[in-house]
């Protein structure tokens, strides 16, 4: 019957998930409970069995009296309760925190009332990958006619604004949206109103909606905000509404929204589709395919391309972050499993200690069911306390996680990380699951005590339990080994990253970003403008030098992709080539050593390049100076004028090669067009040239306010952002690695602690059970060493089996971490050797304590007791 039941179970759960995610989860949970509770099931054909005197006692849940007994008993052994509640609280908190992060980034739908019906419409190639930045206005209009699929089809474009008035000049990210977009999301304003179709039908001036943060930052949270004015890109916008604090569209980085008719949005449109109520994703996709087939005749698409619906869920996450989150989720679940194994172990020990009491009560006529119910009530009580404790801890833990997590997870998602009903439900679910896992099984086993059996031998041998508990410890050790190995790999990789020689001297360096509006300062005027700012900064006390560039290592700059072509030979080999545009002062300010040739002069031809040592090697070693090269597809050749020491531009690029090149900051030719997302939308967006100024100071750097004042002295409307020590920029670039290493390290430490406690408990129990035997051995002349060997040997043997299994499992699974690791192989011998050593030491300690107790056994006393 087993495979048949499994297949039915699969059908049931699949069917439930087809009706909705929550229904699926609910059904799966109910099915799990049903299976776990199977031992307590009544016979369906004779539901009233003689050993159950009244129907009342067959109630599925413990009665009031059972709860009272449980409370009384819990109070009688507080140590056990504190351990159980504490362990549960810790692991439940860890799981809740990780789940709330993973959920916001990967599982959740869009955070709008209509979120489940909102999809992005995009062109996909034959493999289903998005192609191109969006739909053309003509295609958009065509799709919009299909009201049998869409309740609404709205468009938006990301835009950049320069905000003036009411506070500092500021570059704010935002979006240009069609009037119906927010209404389609189902969003509600906190103040004022949303955009309406009439806003674009007749000329009512420029209108904007602002975020809660902007409202507070620039308007001090004033009540009479609706009708107020905000100057964006030199045009006055009338504010019609303020969105509530947690509203994000499309991410927390976008805080101002202006309305435009879609015909005023040039370029491709990012499209949000609101599907009709009751229309499933697949059905809608089928209809889209049908419509597209009809359209294809008029406007042929590339082979295999189709218009696809994409739900937001985790789509914007980069694969690197996604796999980090998956690994952490698995790790934290493993910790939960270890904890359950440990608590089950403790619970069995507890039950074993009470075997006699239970047996006596059974002999006096208490039904087995009654006893199970009591034990169950006790565990449910402890579980509930652990769950509540875990939730309180998690509340704090989530704040820590948000502070530590990379922007990718906290800012660049549509969802905010916070504990809400959904997270509470998850916490409740794992609490119940773990309580059942650790509580019900021992309860059932203990209640099976045959009255006569337990009464006969005073010191029940408990051999059976012993084997089971040893197995649990082996499992705990094995899982700990896997987690510890993962943590060791991540920590080693992180240490390597923090100890990387950056190739320049970050101490005493301060950086700031200037977002220079390209229309206000066209290329011809920009150099003079930046030079003036640099002069002002250089005149500040303590400043040694100032340089301008389009980025600093780990943050900013541009990149070329393609095949490298050296003059005189054929293009060869793909390169990823970071290209920093720097002014003549850059190398001296950053203290990047020039190994050969020279740096840039003030009138440097734009075809000059300084290349890194590694690139120079590639270009012909010592003869590289004066050589010409280009990335295939470029018209112009670069000429090598200097060779610079290696600099770590970006650690993610390090994997593909360590080349760098520098080209002059100021060039006569127009810069390459900005990426599509930053392209002006409807004449309202503005393009900005992001210029990094780097200041080297001898002593303490000037304050943020002083730096800003110096810039505003030149142009009071110039936004200044990210005034930071360069050290901090470097640290921020490692935030994701730190996040992974810290969390994984914490989980592994927790696992190690739990495994050690489990081992200790088993051995302590062993000593307690074999007191007599030990006493006899000592009486017969066994030496201290013999006795210690008995106990410690058992501990080490158990650990060794666990380690062997764990190492094998870690060896097989560590490649999941490969893309998180920097210069550390997933089968790194150091990690794989350290972990077993650590575990052996811990196992020795955990076994030594019980062994010492065994040595204190007084042979006379134990023999007398017999």
């Amino acid at each position, binding site marked *: 019957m087993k495979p*048949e*039941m499994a*297949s039915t179970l699969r059908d049931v759960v699949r*069917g439930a998930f087809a009706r909705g995610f929550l229904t699926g989860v609910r059904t799966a949970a109910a*099915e799990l409970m049903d299976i776990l509770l199977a031992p307590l099931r009544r016979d*369906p054909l*004779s*539901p009233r069995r003689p050993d159950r005197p009244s129907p009342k006692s067959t109630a599925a849940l413990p009665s009031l009296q059972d709860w009272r007994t449980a409370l009384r008993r819990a109070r009688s052994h507080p140590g056990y309760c504190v351990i159980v509640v504490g362990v549960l609280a810790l692991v439940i908190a860890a799981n809740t925190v990780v789940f709330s992060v993973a959920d916001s980034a990967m599982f959740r739908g869009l955070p709008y009332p209509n979120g489940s019906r909102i999809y992005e419409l995009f062109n996909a190639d034959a493999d289903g990958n998005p192609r191109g930045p969006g739909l053309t206005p003509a295609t958009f209009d065509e799709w919009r006619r299909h009201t049998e699929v869409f309740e609404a089809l709205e468009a938006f474009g990301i835009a950049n604004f320069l905000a003036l008035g009411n506070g500092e000049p500021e570059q704010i990210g935002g979006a240009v949206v069609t009037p119906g977009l927010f209404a389609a999301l189902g969003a509600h304003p906190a103040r004022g109103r949303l955009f309406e179709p009439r806003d674009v039908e007749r000329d009512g001036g420029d209108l904007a909606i602002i975020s809660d943060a902007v409202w507070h930052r620039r308007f001090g949270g004033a009540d009479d905000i609706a009708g107020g004015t905000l100057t964006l890109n030199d045009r006055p916008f009338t504010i019609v509404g303020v969105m509530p604090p947690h509203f994000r569209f499309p991410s927390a980085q976008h805080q101002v929204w202006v309305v435009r008719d879609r015909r005023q949005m040039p370029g491709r449109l990012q499209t949000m589709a609101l599907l009709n109520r009751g229309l499933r994703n697949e059905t809608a996709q089928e209809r889209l395919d049908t419509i597209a087939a009809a359209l294809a005749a008029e406007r042929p698409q590339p082979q295999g391309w189709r218009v696809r619906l994409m739900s937001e869920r985790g789509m914007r996450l980069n694969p690197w972050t996604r796999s980090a989150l998956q690994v952490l989720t698995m790790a934290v679940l493993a910790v939960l499993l270890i904890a359950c194994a440990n608590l089950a172990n403790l619970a069995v020990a507890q039950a074993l200690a009470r075997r006699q009491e239970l047996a006596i009560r059974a002999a006096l006529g208490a039904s087995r069911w009654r006893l199970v119910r009591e034990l169950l009530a006790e565990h449910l009580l402890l579980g509930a306390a652990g769950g509540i404790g875990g939730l309180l801890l998690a509340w704090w833990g989530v704040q820590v996680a948000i502070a530590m997590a990379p922007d990718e997870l906290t800012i660049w998602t549509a969802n905010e990380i916070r504990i809400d009903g959904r997270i509470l439900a998850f916490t409740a679910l794992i609490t119940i699951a773990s309580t059942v896992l650790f509580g019900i099984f021992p309860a059932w086993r203990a209640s099976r005590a045959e009255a006569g059996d337990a009464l006969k031998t005073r010191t029940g041998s408990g051999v059976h339990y012993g084997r089971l508990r040893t197995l649990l410890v082996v499992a705990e050790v094995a899982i700990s080994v896997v987690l510890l190995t993962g943590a060791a790999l991540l920590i080693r990789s992180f240490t390597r990253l923090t100890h990387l020689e950056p190739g320049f001297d970050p101490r005493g360096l301060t950086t700031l970003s200037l977002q220079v509006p390209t229309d206000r300062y066209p290329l011809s005027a920009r150099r003079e403008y930046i030079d003036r700012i640099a002069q002002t900064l250089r005149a500040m006390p303590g400043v040694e030098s100032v340089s301008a560039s389009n980025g600093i290592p780990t943050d900013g700059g541009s990149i070329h992709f393609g095949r490298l072509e050296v003059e005189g030979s054929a293009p060869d080999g793909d390169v990823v080539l970071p290209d920093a545009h720097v002014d003549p002062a850059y190398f001296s300010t950053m203290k990047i050593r020039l190994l050969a040739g020279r740096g840039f002069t003030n009138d440097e031809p734009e075809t000059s390049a300084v290349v890194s040592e590694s690139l120079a090697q590639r270009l012909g070693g010592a003869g590289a100076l004066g050589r010409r090269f280009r990335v295939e597809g470029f018209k112009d050749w670069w000429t090598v004028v200097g060779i610079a020491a290696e600099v770590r531009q970006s650690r993610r690029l390090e994997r593909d090669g360590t080349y760098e090149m520098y080209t002059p900051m100021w060039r006569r030719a127009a810069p390459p067009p900005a990426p599509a997302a930053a392209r002006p939308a409807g004449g309202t967006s503005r393009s900005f040239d992001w210029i990094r100024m780097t200041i080297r100071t001898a002593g303490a750097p000037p304050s943020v306010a002083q730096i800003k004042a110096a810039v505003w002295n030149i142009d009071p409307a110039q936004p200044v952002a990210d005034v930071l020590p360069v050290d901090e920029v470097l640290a921020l670039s490692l935030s994701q690695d730190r996040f992974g290493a810290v969390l994984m390290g914490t989980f592994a430490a927790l696992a190690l602690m739990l495994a050690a406690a489990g081992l200790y408990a088993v051995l302590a129990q062993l000593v307690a059970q074999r007191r007599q035997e030990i006493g006899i051995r000592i009486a017969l002349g066994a030496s201290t060493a013999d006795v210690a060997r008995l106990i410690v040997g058992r501990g080490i043997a158990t650990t060794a089996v666990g380690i062997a299994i764990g190492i094998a499992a870690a060896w097989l699974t560590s490649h999941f971490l490969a893309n998180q690791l920097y210069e550390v192989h997933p089968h790194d011998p150091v990690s794989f050797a350290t972990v077993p050593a650590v575990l052996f030491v811990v196992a020795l300690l955990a076994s030594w304590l019980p062994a010492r107790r065994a040595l204190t056994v007084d042979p006379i006393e134990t023999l007398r007791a017999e």
Partner: protein
Amino acid sequence: MHLTKEVFYVLASVAERPRHGYAIIQDVQASTGDAVVLRTGTLYNILKRLLEEGFIAEADRRPADDDERRRYYILTPAGRELLKAEAARLEQMVSLARARRMLPKGANR
């Protein structure tokens, strides 16, 4: 014998036509308007006992294109008697309730 409602609905479900496990769950849920939702473990416990007692049997014929792990169950004559007896017992209770004017007379539903 007094049947639990789950057992009653399982018998009633296979009485109509041979059904496999998942079909029984769906049928019971549909015919009771979601009032009775059988969990898989519960269902198979009931099926096991009903098979042991000979109230149901495994059907020897099955759709050719079906999942081979599925098994179809049919009512045995003994099962039919059991279901009838239970229905009669319930009928008796209902008619008593009707006689005492707890239910509208003659209304079947």
